């Protein structure tokens, strides 16, 4: 009796597994299609999203370097200056990183919210504020006044947060 049941259950389970696997294939197929759409700048959607994530990650790393040094008893100015100089470079052209079609609807994993394209003007203002603050942080950092660097770093961090709070999915 038990064996009989098993004989029925096993094929059913196997069938269901196959079915769900097919479903998954169809889904990922759809995703990669939207992701491989070519944008006006020649990049695919997926490439564009990954490129901006890579830039932002480098900025995050630079910020950690600055924050670590500011916390230290005797900050290493050279490290702060190198990191601060890299931020405006990494942030160049940031508004261009978000062409239409590179939001979550593309199916590529991104924390960019659709509101970026709904309130484009505000988004661009916030990005410009960050770029301006980062440029100032770089200038102040090359000056070498640790207290002033701390203040400029705080301001720059505030501009990141202002944009992320509104335009990025909650972490």
């Amino acid at each position: 009796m038990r064996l009989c049941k098993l004989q029925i259950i096993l094929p059913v389970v196997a069938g269901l597994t196959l079915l769900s696997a097919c479903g998954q294939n169809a889904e990922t197929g759809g995703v990669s299609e939207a992701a491989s759409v070519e944008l006006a700048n020649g990049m695919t959607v997926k490439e564009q999203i990954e490129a901006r994530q890579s830039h932002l990650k480098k900025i995050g790393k630079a910020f950690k370097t600055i924050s670590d040094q500011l916390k230290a008893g005797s900050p290493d100015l050279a490290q702060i200056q190198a990191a601060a100089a890299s931020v405006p470079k990494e942030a160049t052209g940031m508004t261009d990183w978000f062409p239409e079609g590179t939001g979550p609807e593309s199916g590529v994993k991104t924390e960019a919210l659709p509101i970026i394209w709904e309130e484009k003007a505000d988004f661009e203002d916030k990005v410009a504020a960050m770029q301006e603050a980062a440029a100032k942080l770089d200038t102040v950092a090359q000056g070498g006044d640790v207290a002033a660097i701390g203040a400029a770093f705080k301001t720059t961090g505030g501009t990141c947060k202002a944009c992320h709070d509104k335009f990025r999915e909650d972490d």
Partner: protein
Amino acid sequence: MTSEASRILVWDGAIRLVHWLMVVLVPLLWWSAEEGHMDWHKSFGVTMFGLVLFRMIWGLIGTWTARFAPMVRRIGSLKTYIGDLRRREHGATFGHSPLAALSVFALLHALATQVTTGLFSVDVDGLESGPLAVLVSFEAGRQFADIHELNFNFLALLIGLHITAIAFYHFVLKEKLVGPMITGRRARAAFSDSPLPENRARPLAMLAAAVLSFACVMAVLNFG
């Protein structure tokens, strides 16, 4: 009517204070993280770090009911204890029951994981970080933050289980466990075993544990 002499010390002041401070701190820590008040989160977190350290030290040199070694030995009679529970032949345990000992170890483990990963965590923007994050790379700090987030769910699950167990003892087994965790004392008559292990308060050991854990916290804070 029970006279003061027949009410004996089960949980010393340190255990109770640490326990209730943790009860207050866990929701505050969760809330401050959710709302992004990272300065508060770090202050609460460092306080929690000190409490966990103290509890670990107190588990080695504290009162009998606080110490880990007797708790480990208690776990040896887990099967008998659960058997008694199922037959509704439940009797009060002096200190941690085998199940309570397991619960304490699981909760302390989750709390220790939580404070340790928090010390090394870095946020996604590289703007906020734990006091020891200078020792690790951005990528490693992000991984610590991921574990920190994941482990919180595990901790919340254990806390839920803990509260459910207290409610089960209260309503089903008619054993009131919250009162003794507040007053520290329970009627001697509640415990069938005699003699009970000596559970005297140890003020000097308590001071040593407090100083040691405070020194560790200060060392971590002044690192770098």
